[in-house]
């Protein structure tokens, strides 16, 4: 009823090509942005900002990066965390060795560094596919982690390999409170998400999807394999790199290379799968599911049982419930949460008179 689009006519190509062709969607998106940019900074507490939203948004960005590569271009990668590490250490390096470079430019450059590394490790994708490619990218994951652990130059010869992110200042404003850091993360993520959404609707995005669906056919119709696959690797790694830089600067501020280990890569891959392959919205839903749900479960368990249970039972039950939920969601909707949302939307459009 609320979601009825009767009377909304698209009379120009411009109107037809909008990201949100339905008025209600535009209103909802506007409201969401308003809440995110105004209401949450005004009324959100520190826990919400620095423990939930900041990590969730940053990992959404990394998930978005992997989704471009795996979901849109069909190249399976297990090197996501490695590319994040490149971004984090590059941003640290730029701030350390070229302090006059503004922070946002340093982030951009660190994203480009990650893109370069990603392109290099994407080269095998021209010869191998599927699981074999995943194994090749696995090598990048181990190599990058090893590099930052072993070569002292990257961490400014820190004895334990830990880097301490420098204080963030943008145009003279120090980003030293959770609210300011949240706004930085939110702005970066919003801009990059919008760019991604437009990218996947463009010629480049269609080329990626053609390669994903059948690369031989794509090549036959004249899509250059080299450029398409490597551009997917480059752009995906760029997103991951910026996410890594944000992770180091806006979230943790002291990072060891092991923060970006294989577990992180798997976590992000899980987010892509749970959220929905080949969906920008899915990247956010997936990250939210994996990051927020365990914390919500924790609070729920605490509320329900307090200290009544045998010590140690609660966290084990949490893991059990969380694992079951993942399996449940994948059985109910193998194509991810984004698909679930799409189905709900279809139903809402017809409600209350489904045919």
């Amino acid at each position, binding site marked *: 009823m609320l979601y009825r689009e009767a009377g909304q006519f698209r009379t120009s190509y411009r109107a037809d090509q909008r990201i949100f062709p339905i008025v209600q969607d535009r209103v909802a998106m506007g409201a969401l942005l308003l809440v995110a940019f105004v209401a949450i900074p005004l009324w959100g507490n520190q826990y919400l900002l620095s*423990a939930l939203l900041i990590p969730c948004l940053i990992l959404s960005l990394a998930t978005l990066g992997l989704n471009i590569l795996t979901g849109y271009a069909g190249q399976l990668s297990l090197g996501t965390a490695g590319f994040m590490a490149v971004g984090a250490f590059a941003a640290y390096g730029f701030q350390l060795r070229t302090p006059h470079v503004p922070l946002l430019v340093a982030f951009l450059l660190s994203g480009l560094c990650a893109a370069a590394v990603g392109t290099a490790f994407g080269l095998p994708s021209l010869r191998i596919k599927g699981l074999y490619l995943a194994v090749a990218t696995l090598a990048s994951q181990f190599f990058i982690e090893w590099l930052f652990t072993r070569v002292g130059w990257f961490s400014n010869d820190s004895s334990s390999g830990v880097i301490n992110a420098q204080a963030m200042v943008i145009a003279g404003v120090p980003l030293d409170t959770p609210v300011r850091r949240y706004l930085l993360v939110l702005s970066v993520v919003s801009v990059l998400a919008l760019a991604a959404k437009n990218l996947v609707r463009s010629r480049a995005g269609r080329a990626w999807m053609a390669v994903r669906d059948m690369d031989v056919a794509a090549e036959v119709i004249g899509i250059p394999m080299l450029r398409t696959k490597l551009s997917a690797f480059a752009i995906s790694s760029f997103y991951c790199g910026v996410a890594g830089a944000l992770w180091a600067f806006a979230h943790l501020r002291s990072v060891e290379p*092991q923060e970006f280990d294989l577990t992180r890569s798997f976590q992000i891959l899980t987010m892509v799968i749970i959220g929905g392959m080949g969906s920008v919205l899915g990247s956010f839903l997936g990250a939210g599911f994996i990051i927020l749900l365990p914390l919500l479960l924790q609070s729920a368990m605490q509320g329900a049982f307090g200290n009544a249970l045998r010590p140690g039972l609660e966290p084990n039950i949490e893991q059990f419930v969380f694992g079951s939920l993942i399996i449940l969601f994948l059985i109910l909707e193998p194509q991810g949460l984004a698909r679930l949302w799409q189905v709900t939307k279809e139903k809402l459009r017809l409600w209350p008179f489904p045919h």
Partner: protein
Amino acid sequence: MQHLIQGTALALALALSAPARAQGTPVANEQFVPVPSYRVGPYAAAGTSVFGGFIDYMNFINVRDGGINGVKLTWEECETSYTVDKGLPCYEKLKGHPPTGASMFSFYSTAIVYAVLDRAGTDKVPLVTIVHGRTDASDGRVFPYVFPLMTNYWSQNTDIVKFIGMRSGGMDKLKGQKIVHLYLDVAYGKEPNEIFLKQAAMYGFEAKLVPVPPPGTDQQSQWLEIRQFAPDWVIVTGYGVMNPAMLKAAARANYPRDHVIGNFWTGSEEDTIPAGDAAVNYISSLINPAGTDFKIIQDIQKVLYDKGLGNMTDKSRIGSVLYNRGIMTGIITVEAIRTAQGKYGKKPLTGEQTRWGLENLNLDDKRIAQLGATGLIQPLKVTCADHEGGGAVKFQQWDGKKWKIISDWIQPDRKLVRDMVEASAAKYAAEKGITPRDCSKGG
């Protein structure tokens, strides 16, 4: 319908008034202590013992004394799984807990300590990092809110090298020896490397660093490397499942176990019992011995476990090295709060106030005896500049059934450690733009 509206209105009014009522009542006479424990994952065996002992001690103080000078201790557990991803939300969730916020955090995870280091200073919440965390935080001028009490990785490394020197018949005998540092390849494991290499140059022994990728269950290639190098001694910085795997791999490589020296996180029953015969004669350093002979442990068993109030489900682990480390953490937490109460009054204190208590903590032999912890902990005196306090360790050997103490407290090379701590802290301060406190001004 009428009822429904009235009911809803009533519920709403109640819900809205609840926080208001809470504000009206006087602040509860309670001191909140967060317990960021880990009871699942590869480090759970250690976590359940350490945090079990910690909770037992606080509960014991509540049951026996009714709290600290009448202020009852309260706590809430939060599962960190030894990961930053979960540990950080735990910190954010518990730091502002009523009535006066978190007294102090003991994470027992170096990675989490690194992640919250910056925040703790801003939020004015002390981090107690007993034998873990960031070593150069021992410089209290740069890290006012971090307390790596008892000893740090660098002091301990000098202790171990000194012990090796004693075993070899003098420090000059170290010359020409070969020593391997086998470590878990994370920030924690890498902490001792710098001082280890420095000491190698000082004493003329040949050093080799052998990293083990986490979690460390597979060490075949590492021990192959060690066998080829044929070292005189192997120093191990391990944790959790890495340790029994290390002992088994050493046995397979036929390396004499009495030349393998673990650090204080590599020497507990949780490490040796799973390794079975492979662990016999293995040596490790310790900052607190195992055993239930201490008066405090026996009191806890009487006051808590006889009444079914204890936290440990597996009672055989009471008195283990890690359980006793939890007791030690409890003692330091409680005594720091007690010290701070001496200055700020017998009421719930904020993190800023307990920080003063930690910085002025002085546990001498007399006080330790009063606490019933003689032999369990070493004397500890914290100052504004020195946030480490002690620095000594003992050594113990596993006889197949239990740990036997084989040395007295061995003092570290204080000068070497302190110089390195200050240099490293100064570098950190420069990177972060911190001006170190002037400790001569008191405060």
